[in-house]
């Protein structure tokens, strides 16, 4: 059984990347970086996150981020209650000139999202039909043992990273991570993003139910952003540890 699953422990393993994988990788990488940057700019316009259907400056936040001059700006006129009863929702006029670069920020975010969705869909379909997903990304039964996982984790924790020529076969942790990014994090990112869209949620209101409201979706969207940034840091670090030049070459030229 162990011969069926190659162990990438051996130095200089790696069969390189096929052309469609390389092209998809760099389009996705560019899109994700653009999405991360513009997403941060969009968040700077309203650096407060909430849980549930709604949330705004006049309702309590789940947490606030000190990432722009809009953080706790306090530029509000006296609030006026909508209803006579105590605890009534209120309105107040904003007097503060907020930081807002969403005009280009949002449009660039969605443009990059189109590239990600199109390339992502192509990658997943090509990956399924070529066997790349099953062969290289799906952690298979025998390697998914607690012992193997612990072994691989210890190896990473001790920075025992072998140089590689790039490409599969991948280690079990590596497979789990790539699989999680491709089939969990990025699809959830797209779905929570769409749950913030008034046109899409009017057509598919179940999205609001699934994520517990558009503000919850926005907070999950932010959580996934943090997770993907952590992935990006670890991913680039691992590439550097296992032979930066050769890895970069493998992902660009093939071998």
């Amino acid at each position, binding site marked *: 059984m162990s011969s069926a699953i190659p162990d990438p422990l051996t130095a200089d393993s790696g069969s390189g990347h096929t052309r469609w994988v390389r092209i998809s990788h760099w389009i996705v990488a560019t899109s994700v970086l653009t999405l991360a940057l513009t997403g941060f700019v969009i968040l700077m316009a309203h650096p407060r996150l909430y849980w549930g*259907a709604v949330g705004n400056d006049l309702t309590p936040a789940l947490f606030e981020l000190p990432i722009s001059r809009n953080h706790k700006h306090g530029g509000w006129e006296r609030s006026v209650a909508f209803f006579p009863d105590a605890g009534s929702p209120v309105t107040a*006029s904003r007097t503060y000139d907020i930081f807002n670069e969403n*005009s280009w920020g949002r449009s660039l975010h969605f*443009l990059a999202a189109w590239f990600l969705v199109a390339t992502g869909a192509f990658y997943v379909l090509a990956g399924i039909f070529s066997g790349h997903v099953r062969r290289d990304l799906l952690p298979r039964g025998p390697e998914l043992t607690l012992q193997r996982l612990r072994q691989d984790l210890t190896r990473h924790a001790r920075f025992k990273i072998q140089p590689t020529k790039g490409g599969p076969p991948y280690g079990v942790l590596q497979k789990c991570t790539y699989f999680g990014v491709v089939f969990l994090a990025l699809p959830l990112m797209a779905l929570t993003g769409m749950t913030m869209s*008034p046109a899409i949620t009017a057509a598919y209101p179940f999205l609001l139910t699934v994520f517990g409201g558009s503000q919850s979706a926005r907070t999950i969207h932010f959580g996934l952003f943090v997770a993907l940034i952590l992935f990006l840091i670890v991913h680039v670090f691992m590439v550097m540890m296992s032979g930066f030049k050769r890895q970069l070459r493998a992902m660009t030229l093939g071998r």
Partner: protein
Amino acid sequence: METKKVLTTRRALIAGLASTGGLMLAGCSKELPPTYGNVLRMGDLLTYKAHRLLLPAHTLAKEYDRHDISSMPAIGTTNPADSQQPFFNADLGAAYERLRVGDFAEWRLSIEGRVARPGTYTLTELKRFASRTQITKHTCEEGWSSIAEWTGVPLRTVLDAAGILPQARFVNFYAFDDIADGIDMFDALHPQTILAYGMNGRNLPVSHGAPVRLRVETQLGYKSVKYLHRIVVKDEFDDMGKNGLLQNGWSWYAGI
């Protein structure tokens, strides 16, 4: 094998170029928002076309219960008569102040353009139409949202009364804070697109667009133009120059 691949790549390239060309061409025609050759506007156009192609027509935005009504900030123009505000226009501001002092009894909404019966409506006349009340979510492009109850007359009712001509494709709105913006017939005829004169059971407050604002529940908050005074029905797309949001770098379509 190699020849086959090259052919496929070339075909894909041709198809890609042709569709990009199609998008750009469409951007130049008057039936769609212009792109001005700006790649961001091309992306906006792709989103708009994709939504119109893929999303089912006239599904209703979620409506909430009275106890879901939340606090709601008033942003952008909160009083068109205040010279300190960013979109202030002296003439319009003065006119607005006169109307406000008179409780908007003299206010008129003019309906012009490609309609069989252009004319004006007073607030009383608008309230005479069958009203619609909806508790909906306002989604601001900044990232926040709120829920309020809106009462008004469906835009469709008013457009039907004015008699939209068959070629008409866009409905444009002009406001007392000198903002102008438009929507397509798809959103204009949506049952939840209303000319709202009531908010949370009272008259619409000045900070939220008194006496009448638009509510487009399938798009972001900035499409729900406040302080309306004029509606113009058009056959062709009109970016409304410097008063329109498009030339200020904002997407005209804001369904996302």
